[in-house]
């Protein structure tokens, strides 16, 4: 006979919500994947090197892949393995992408009729 599952609703206060929405620094010993997952949950922009990016499902997390759509690599420290890379894949969450990044298609659509 299985035990019943008791669900106790948690009363979220604004302070708890704000704290939960903020990213904490990386804890020593925290697995790479866990850290990237936490960043994705907070919709942070993520840079992953050529070895680490395979394990990140950017579509499922709602990200825009700069490498996929623009064939552009970036330089910087990998957010997973923390090694500096020259073949970094930049992922920008779609919530922030329109405010912070102009895609190649958007650049092409901008009118060229008036260019000082």
């Amino acid at each position, binding site marked *: 006979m299985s035990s019943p599952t008791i669900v106790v609703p948690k009363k979220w206060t604004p302070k708890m919500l*704000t*704290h939960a*929405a*903020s*990213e*904490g*620094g*990386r*804890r020593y010993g925290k697995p790479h994947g866990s850290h990237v997952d936490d960043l994705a949950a907070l*919709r*942070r*922009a*993520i*840079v992953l090197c050529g070895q680490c990016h395979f394990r990140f499902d950017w579509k499922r997390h709602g990200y825009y892949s700069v490498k996929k759509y623009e064939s*552009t*690599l*970036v*330089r*910087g*420290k990998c*957010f997973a393995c923390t090694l500096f890379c*020259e073949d*970094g894949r*930049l992922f*920008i*969450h779609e919530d*922030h992408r*329109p*405010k*912070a*990044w*102009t895609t190649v298609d958007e*650049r092409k659509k*901008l*009118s060229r*009729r*008036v*260019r*000082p």
Partner: protein
Amino acid sequence: MEQYNTITGGQLFVREYQIGEAMANAGVGTTAATNATAGINLVTEIAAVDYVGLTLDTQATLVTAQQSDNSDPARRVTVITNSDLMIKARLNDGDTEGTALQLFDVTTESLDGLTITTGDAWDSASDKDGGTAWGFDGNNAGVFRQITSATSTAALVTVAFPNDLLVGHNFMRCPLSATTPQWPDLTNLFTEVNAEAVSDSNNVNFYVIDMILNDIGSDGRLNSYVILVPADSIYGSNV
């Protein structure tokens, strides 16, 4: 403001920085930390001295106190730090984001194409001299000219518009141009450029290196942009 390209075509350099103040919006410029702050700061409406980079995400809260679960209270944002980064910023009417640019309708025709007479003040504190006027509709739609002098009712250009300026045709304006050094004035949230004001010459923020000025066909009131380059990046000399 959005990443648009780089002048040299080099790879983007992206890294995280600890924040010194809350950053609620992505696509804003940041400046170096000072002795009194915990991390990088936001630019101001008029200055971007010691520019660090353009943010790609947000941190709504600055946390300083030690946490009960011993988690790290430091908060970080991801920033593009290239000193030659080209930044696209929308031209906005005023300080509040999302405001469509004003239209200035011609009230007195100009058969030599040199005077845009609209009855509005073109010589106000926002100083349109050295700025740009472009046709929104009419027979000069899509044509721009640099304003060479301004009066309380008109703007004068040195190079004539190709067609007569007829009554009822609309123009738009901004105090910036790609050929005259003027420091742009940003909006309240630092995400767009105020097209009705400029920062005074004592402040350093961005150079304007290109402009995308649309007419009625592309709804230029909401879709006109300047392309900026940081003038005082901490990572090297610029243009």
